[in-house]
């Protein structure tokens, strides 16, 4: 469903992604790990279509279409969802109102009738249960005054509402307490249906105990430098990144 070939991308004249290759098939869960500043969030931003990130070369196709040609909102409507590492606050706009607008935009692009308030409320209540979200949260302004963990939970709630075909979770686990981690993971797992795919960006193997990935990749210096089964995450947890860094850096120097 997603195919990234030789992707080179930069931000503010600085090259971050340096020839990245990556393939996601329907229903797969891919974990991306890697040291700070290696380009994980950059990859997520490029896929979501953030303007400041310039694609210099390479290609990205999503369900056969050229993703890089699409506007951010069209990518979202086509089924790409990004759970932000740092969710944005929108004062004065209630979560419910925000989501209703979003859900109906996505429906419109699919030729579906908009949900009326009653229908929307019903769907919302269902999905709120999924991430055990407090009722009052939907009436509060989008992310405003939310705790770090609440923001992350809200991202997953939005994902559940929008039912994307490819969800990219950028460090959704950071800032979550132990219970919240379980709840959020359960929410994600409930949305695994064999067709929906996930790219899970994380620093911690712990999350992958809950959301078990099909593949684990290490992103370093703008490239996927190692891929393996879920056990790779355990190895990383144990050994850190140095051995991989050494491998890569020595081969570059050689």
């Amino acid at each position, binding site marked *: 469903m997603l195919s990234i070939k030789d992707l080179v991308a930069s931000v503010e004249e600085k090259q971050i992604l340096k020839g990245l290759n990556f393939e996601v098939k329907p229903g797969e869960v891919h974990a991306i790990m890697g040291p700070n500043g290696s380009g994980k969030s950059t990859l997520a931003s490029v896929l*979501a279509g953030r303007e400041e990130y310039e694609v210099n070369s390479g290609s990205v196709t999503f369900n056969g279409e050229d993703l890089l040609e699409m506007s951010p*909102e069209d990518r979202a409507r086509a089924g790409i969802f990004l759970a932000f590492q740092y969710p944005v606050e929108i004062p004065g*706009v209630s979560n419910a*109102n925000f989501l209703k607008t979003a859900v109906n935009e996505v429906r419109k692009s699919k030729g579906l009738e908009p949900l009326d308030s009653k229908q929307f409320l019903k769907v919302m209540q269902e999905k709120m249960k999924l991430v055990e979200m407090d009722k009052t949260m939907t009436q509060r302004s989008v992310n405003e005054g939310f705790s770090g963990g609440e923001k992350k939970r809200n991202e997953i709630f939005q994902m559940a509402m929008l039912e994307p075909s490819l969800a990219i979770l950028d460090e959704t686990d950071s800032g979550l307490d132990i219970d919240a981690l379980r709840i959020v993971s359960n929410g994600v797992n409930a949305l695994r249906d064999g067709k929906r795919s996930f790219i899970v960006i994380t620093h911690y193997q712990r999350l992958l105990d809950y959301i078990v990935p099909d593949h684990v990749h290490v992103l370093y210096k703008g490239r996927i430098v190692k891929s393996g089964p879920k056990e790779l995450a355990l190895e990383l947890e144990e050994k850190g990144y140095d051995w991989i860094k050494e491998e890569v850096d020595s081969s570059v120097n050689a």
Partner: protein
Amino acid sequence: MSEDLKILDEVTNSEYKWGFVSNIESDNAPKGLSEDIVRFISAKKNEPEWLLEYRLKAYRHWLTLTEPTWPNVTYPKIDFQDIIYYSAPKAKPTLNSLDELDPEIKSTFDKLGISLEEQKRLANVAVDAVIDSVSVKTTFRESLGELGIIFSSFSEAVQEHPELVKKYLGSVVPYTDNFYASLNAAVFSDGSFCYIPKGVRCPMELSTYFRINSAGTGQFERTLIVADEGAYVSYLEGCTAPMRDENQLHAAVVEIVSHEEATVKYSTVQNWYPGDKDGKGGIFNFVTKRGICLGNKSKISWTQVETGSAVTWKYPSVILKGDNSVGEFYSVAVTNNMQQADTGTKMIHLGKNTSSTIISKGISGGRSQNSYRGLVKIAKGAVNARNFSQCDSLLLGDQCGAHTFPYLEVNNKSSKVEHEATTSKVGEDQIFYCNQRGISTEDAVGLIVNGYCKEVFNQLPMEFAVEAQKLLAISLEGSVG
């Protein structure tokens, strides 16, 4: 809240949709201003001698004044001799039912989406519709009459309740007040009059719709609202204007009197034609609005949403005379393209324990200029007076300007004045976040800006809040590149 999406859908890419011209035969005065024109207007309206005298005094005073230049706006010089000061639709203004309404006027209302039948049946709102200068139809008058509430055109009030008009006219905004108030006092055409008797709570929102209709017709409405002891009224004024190529002057005066323990809530959504993208055409809106909290524990609350006009000059004010009286000002002023707005409020504290709140949200896009100008004055005798002001500016783009001019005069030590001001830009982050959820940039801006204005919209009656959100989205089209 369910309305938001519908509204955003409706307004996307729409031009100024209320810009049409209807074909109502006018009964115009000749162009220009002189004592004869003042007499002509007064005679046309069959006014009593004292009112003619009032107009003439105002006219003579106006001759001694020059246009103010202190507002932070620029516009071509107005030729006051090139304006028609009176025009009236020929249709008879005294109608028994809506069926008798001039079909042209009726279809005008339909285009505006304010079909009177609909309003009459569905909404709990009495509409006093003003086309040009003469009031065409007043509804719900009888049911209000049973409570002793007077809600009529200003002209009718002059005929039917001259003693009330005489008592309060000019008592808050005297004809000597300023250049435009003076002009208005000399030539005012019509407007609304509203009186709520002692202890009566007006059971419905009172509402008027003003339109400028004849080319080159200056509009000089005069509105007077009086709430007697313990009374309550919520009054709405909304307006839309047809698209025009030449600038039109609008200089209204609104006076509000709130007696002991009375409350007047005045809400406006203002949408005069702002001119095209290059600033051509558009209405000049120079308005004097002022209320006085005359009695103890009285209250006056202004809420305004300003999206229109090429040039706006407007400072709804409250004089807090009675002890423990309360003044409020909630404002959203939007400017886009070449629009200029200089708007704000004045809170004049005279009585003890008086308090005032100012919440102002200025939003500027395009190459527009948006100024907040506010005065908080606390007199020596206003012991323990309180004021809180919050003035926020939101910039959409980098070619527009936002300016804040707060003036504080505190003359006693027991009073407390707080002023907060912020300037922010609509964040790329916020827009991208919305985009990532499938919301287009234009809709995102509408959503973010409406959120920004929520505190003010919350003050508006429901149906008005919906209209305000629509107007905001319309006027912000193309504001972000």
